[in-house]
């Protein structure tokens, strides 16, 4: 066993003892923990031999032991930028009641700590916890099931449309400590809500989060995930979604922080006519590894899935995207598409992109494509010839590429935050004027036209649309100046 595995195994063994059991934890949680413990001890941390971890090595994580994250309060620096209420704030995986603020929570919406819900209303949690994300399937989900202490429970009743954005904030700090927050989001039939889950911290911790979302028939949920963890942190996040008929889910993952961060979005389209839009943006530099795995299970007819993921990679960073679409036999009229585009800003940055389609019936429309490119010389010269410095021109073109994903973040406050966070990470991003990046609202108003700028184009090297091409795409370098013709 690796040092990390040994430390986790010890903690898991302790949870098996009666004395560890938090006061009032119901029996079904003990069962869930036992399943998690057994599954983790059997599977242990995945190695690159594991198909889902081929491009992302956990060696650095495995090499160090992790203690349970200590009890702590939100620190001054972290509370300065807390989002508006209603918000739940978790510090090192446990609710911080002082930083939490549940004012403005509308009727029909319940939001609180999982620990409290398990003590006070276990019957509300039992049918769902560990059901959307079963602990057996995934080492980190199993570890989370065994070791979680707290997390958020959000319930939106049938037919309730929740106007304010619900914020779940996770703050972590410490060295060689791990927190395993566990979240459960339940949207009733025809319920509507937007939830923003954000991660920040200080130190070299591991946060291993699992979020289970269950969408009732006709529910509309937007779930934005903003990962701004500390530069030496490890982040593993699993978002597991179960959708009933005609529900629609929009999930975005903005991955910016951490030394190694893996986010998985796993969606079960379990009822007829359900749709999901999964978006992601990763902006990496230095030696960061930012990894996304997306798995969409088309288990019902007439479901639609759309995936758009973009990466901006500088320094010696790595981006990884694996998108798997599984269309089951009975899932007729499936419509699935997947795009992964990457902009490489340096010679040493790399990206591995792996689309996989598994289609078990004929009545489907599926496509996938991907690009890996660099900033185009002709665009750069065009901007410079108008007086923009090379640094500003590069920042502008990079932002143009990334901004498509930022625009997709629905709640305005979250979008503004994402914009600031993304531009702060772009080379020379400080040169960009924040006031007018996403739109020219004054101009739009005056001219009565609010056209939104669609995606920026990098040089295309399509990976085609045949079944699974497991080879990493190579960067294409372009010779825009090569064509020796003059057109009069």
């Amino acid at each position, binding site marked *: 066993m690796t040092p990390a595995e040994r430390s986790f195994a010890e903690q898991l063994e302790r949870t098996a003892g009666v004395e560890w059991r938090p006061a009032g934890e119901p029996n079904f949680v003990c069962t869930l923990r036992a399943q998690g413990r057994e599954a983790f001890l059997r599977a242990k941390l995945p190695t690159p031999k594991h198909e889902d971890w081929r491009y992302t090595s956990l060696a650095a994580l495995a090499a160090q032991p992790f203690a349970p994250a200590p009890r702590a309060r939100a620190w001054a620096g972290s509370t300065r930028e807390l989002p508006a209420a209603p918000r739940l704030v978790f510090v090192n995986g446990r609710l911080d009641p002082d930083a939490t603020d549940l004012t403005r929570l509308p009727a029909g919406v319940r939001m609180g700590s999982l620990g409290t819900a398990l003590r006070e209303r276990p019957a509300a949690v039992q049918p769902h916890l560990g059901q959307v994300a079963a602990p057996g399937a995934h080492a980190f989900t199993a570890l989370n099931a065994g070791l979680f202490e707290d997390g958020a429970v959000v319930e939106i009743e049938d037919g309730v449309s929740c106007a304010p954005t619900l914020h779940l904030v996770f703050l972590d700090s410490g060295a060689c400590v791990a927190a395993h927050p566990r979240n459960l989001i339940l949207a009733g039939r025809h319920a509507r809500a937007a939830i923003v889950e954000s991660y920040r911290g200080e130190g070299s911790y591991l946060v291993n989060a699992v979020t289970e979302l269950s969408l009732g028939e006709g529910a509309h949920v937007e779930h934005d995930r903003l990962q701004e963890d500390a530069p030496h942190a490890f982040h593993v996040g699993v978002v597991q979604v179960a959708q009933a008929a005609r529900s629609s889910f929009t999930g975005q993952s903005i991955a910016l922080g951490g030394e190694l961060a893996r986010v998985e979005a796993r969606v079960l389209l379990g009822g007829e006519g359900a749709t999901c839009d999964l978006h992601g943006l990763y902006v990496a530099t230095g030696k960061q590894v930012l990894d996304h795995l997306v798995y969409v299970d088309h288990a019902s007819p007439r479901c639609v899935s759309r995936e758009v993921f973009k990466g901006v990679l500088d320094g010696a960073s790595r981006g990884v995207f694996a998108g798997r679409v599984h269309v089951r036999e009975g899932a007729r009229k499936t419509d699935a598409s997947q795009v992964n585009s990457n902009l490489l800003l340096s010679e040493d940055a790399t990206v591995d992109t792996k689309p996989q389609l598994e289609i078990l019936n004929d009545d489907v429309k599926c496509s996938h494509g991907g690009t890996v490119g660099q900033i185009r*010389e*002709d*665009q750069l*010269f*065009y*901007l*410079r*010839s*108008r*007086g*923009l*410095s*090379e640094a*500003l*021109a590069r920042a*502008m*073109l990079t*932002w*143009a*590429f990334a*901004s*498509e994903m930022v625009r997709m973040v629905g709640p305005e406050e979250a979008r503004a935050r994402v914009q600031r966070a993304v531009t702060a990470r772009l080379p020379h991003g400080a040169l960009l*004027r924040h*006031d*007018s*990046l996403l*739109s*020219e609202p*004054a*101009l*739009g108003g*005056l*001219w009565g*036209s*609010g*056209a939104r*700028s*669609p*995606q*920026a*184009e990098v040089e295309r090297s399509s990976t085609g649309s045949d079944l699974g091409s497991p080879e990493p795409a190579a960067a294409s370098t372009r010779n*825009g*100046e*090569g*064509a*020796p*013709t*003059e*057109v*009069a």
Partner: protein
Amino acid sequence: MLTIQGLKAGVAGRDILQGLDLEVKAGEVHAIMGPNGSGKSTLAGVLAGRETYTVAGGKVTFEGEDLLALAPEKRAARGIFLAFQYPVEIPGVGNLYFLRTAFNALRKARGEEELDAMDFLAFARERMKLVKMDPALANRSVNEGFSGGEKKRNEILQMAVLEPKLAILDEVDSGLDIDALRAVADGVNALRAPERAMLVVTHYQRLLEYIRPDHVHVMVGGRIVTSGGPELALELEKRGYGWIEKEPSPRHVAWEARP
């Protein structure tokens, strides 16, 4: 204003400009004509500072300064503007945001005060009227999905906003129908001024019916082989380029790179 002496330049190992001389004074409009591949667009690109061209020899001074030593953005700050033959589409960058950023970058480089969004908007609207550009295009991404005529008009709008000292128009007439051509030419003519020079690169005499040049130069094989007044353009229209290519010493017509 602009003095070019013995300019030699090429791209990817091919020599294109083979010792070109040209003198442009403030207020003058010079037309550069020539057959395909004679080096017209290369000249435009070299003057604007496109790094894909290699300068092999010669001198270019602009208002007494060595132009070739300057980065493209520095040349823009000195007052050089290139209207592209193929304006580049830049998805995700708003047209007006780009224009304001460029405008303020030039102001800053010249030590002038930047304009805020509202003041710039008023100025840009007035300039858009001047070039008769559809205001809806201001909110779109730079050149993205623009028609050929809209792209060229957008170039002239940028010129009208940035108010260069020397405007180089590289085949602004290519791909335009007669109405679009007239609109572009009207925009250019509105910007003619005693302190502003223009270098109009074109294959056809047609454009020169709308933009009357003071001087016409004919380029063949990377050099200016003959110069004259507007009447030279008419003669070219009548006789084609063949007679000029034959009269001076015959030479290979170099391939010209497309920017």
